[in-house]
């Protein structure tokens, strides 16, 4: 029955700089939204993928994440992805890392993002700083937005739907002062297919959740024919989810067609469940 439903994933990308975002904007064919917004926002035609340019720093990352949530009407099953450059003396220049631990100066405790399973990408501990750091020795990865992005995104969805990816751009051997716009763009570009691979995992889990929470096929049809209170609507939804596993649409329509009230619809569906003998050999 699920394959009749419209497949729809939901992705929100939060990226600090336009130079970091450009190749991603191109890949997903994201276009600027047609109105003035506090932060630059882009979206695809289907409105499944949205991207915001947050600017540098924790305040911008937090504010833009919350702003994009509200502006794009994201759901709890939307995946949130932060992509950007980071400093490090532990990894190699140009390599892409997933983040599985985040620390800051401000907080004693760390936070622990989930990472996609079976990822071939290496993982690192991210330190988010409010000021540029030139001493790289104490940390694995250093950025200026990650912790704030994660803190806000964690309030919007489960941590399994949040991802942080960082490309190493500077370190003891690659002075931050020598970074140019084109170098930044290029760092993302050379990792684009790895990034897309990660994004596609988050597209899949988001889509899978939407399929699960999608209303049963007959729900709206039935609701349009009888008047259901909020409690009855919930009961109807639950009963239909249970019944549609062993009863097809036509049969359900047949058993309720003579019902005069919403209560009798619920009673008839309850009876259908009550009399069901599960055929375990089918599953």
């Amino acid at each position, binding site marked *: 029955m*699920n394959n009749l439903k419209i497949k729809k994933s939901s992705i929100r990308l939060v990226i600090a700089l336009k130079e970091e975002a450009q190749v991603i904007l191109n890949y997903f064919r994201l276009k600027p939204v047609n109105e003035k917004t506090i932060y630059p926002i882009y979206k695809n035609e289907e409105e499944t993928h949205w991207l915001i340019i947050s600017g540098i720093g924790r305040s911008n990352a937090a504010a833009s994440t919350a702003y994009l949530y509200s502006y794009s009407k994201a759901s709890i099953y939307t995946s949130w992805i932060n992509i950007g450059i980071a400093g490090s003396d532990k990894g190699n220049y140009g390599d892409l890392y997933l983040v*599985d*631990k985040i620390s800051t100066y401000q907080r004693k*405790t*760390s936070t*622990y993002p*989930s*990472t996609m*399973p*079976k990822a071939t990408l290496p*993982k690192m*501990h991210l330190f988010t700083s409010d000021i540029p750091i030139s001493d790289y020795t104490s940390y694995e990865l250093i950025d200026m937005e990650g912790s704030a992005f994660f803190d806000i995104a*964690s*309030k919007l*969805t*489960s*941590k*399994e*739907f949040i991802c942080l990816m960082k490309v190493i751009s500077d370190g003891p051997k690659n002075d931050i002062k020598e970074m140019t716009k084109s170098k930044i763009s290029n760092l993302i570009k050379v990792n684009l297919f790895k990034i897309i691979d990660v994004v596609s995992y988050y597209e899949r*889990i988001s889509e899978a*959740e939407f399929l*699960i929470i999608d209303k049963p096929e007959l729900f709206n049809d039935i609701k349009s024919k009888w008047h259901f209170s909020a409690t009855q609507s919930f009961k109807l939804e*639950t009963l239909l*989810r*249970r*019944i549609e*596993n*062993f009863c097809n649409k036509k049969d359900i329509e047949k058993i309720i067609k003579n019902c005069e009230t919403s209560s009798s619809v619920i009673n008839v569906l*309850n009876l259908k*469940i*009550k*009399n*069901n*003998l*599960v*055929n*375990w*050999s*089918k*599953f």
Partner: protein
Amino acid sequence: MIETIYVEEVIKNHPRTKFILKKFKKSRIILIDKYGEIFNKRNQNFRIQKSNPCLILAHKKDGFVLPAPEGFGIGSSKNFYFSHMYNCIYDCRYCFLQGMYSSANYVIFVNFEDFDIAIKKIIEKNVNTKLTFFSGYDCDSLAFENVTGFAKHILSIFKTYTQIEIEFRTKSIQKQPFFSLKPMKNVILAYSLMPELMSNSLDNKAPSISRRISVISELASKGWKIGLRFDPLIHGENWKELYKELLENIYNNISTDCLHSVSFGTLRFPKRMFKDIFKLYPNEPLFTSPLSLNNKMISYNIEIEEEMTSYCKNLSLRYINEDQIFKCSI
């Protein structure tokens, strides 16, 4: 394959932490302050976590041994349980652990010695009382034994206190440490069972019923005491034939001299827990069963429950005595 292991700072050098970590050489180790930073936090997706759970190694501070819920016993006047682990490597659709914690990650408490102390205290406080301890209420008692070695560790206490019973309840086919030890009369190896057809659909990631029966048979023939736990009893088409086949298969393959006890339990979910589990897995066949709200619990109606329990009990009475049969009613 466990990809990530979180280790509490305070136990990072504990010998048992090192012992466990040696078994996961390819996993990424992340140091944490408290297991609560990862486990049971809000905003976690249980279903996604369950497909790829992490392991957390932690130090348990209190609540090592607790009184068992009423209706959980097998004849003793006082029943207690302890859990060295939270969550289970199996994914059984009727299991209360799906709604118990918001996280599907596994927590292992490495300070086994604190469990020893708490168990001994209870034994010494309850002299002349028949006691039974249940190992692993919040997990499968033996499924992760090859990683933790907890059963092997805890058995040493019950070698000393031979009048005190301990039950390990499991769906695993883990034979060690029992297979290489001399049988102990106060140890019950209790196996959760249901007809294979139902188990195939409901006991995700758990060993098949036939493999479980084969291990039960081996351990029984070595002289270990066996408990059979038909809990929950599952309703459906041909349930009588399916349970008859299962019960006869077991009783004909196991020396009934080794049977310590048999218990039957009905399928019951607290209302809130059912709501959570149904939300996680709305398309599961189990939820197409005739389950409804009865006395604040989601269950089969009382007629189905009684019919199933008495049918299975009567069949069992052909092989065992009435005093070996218990009803599990939690």
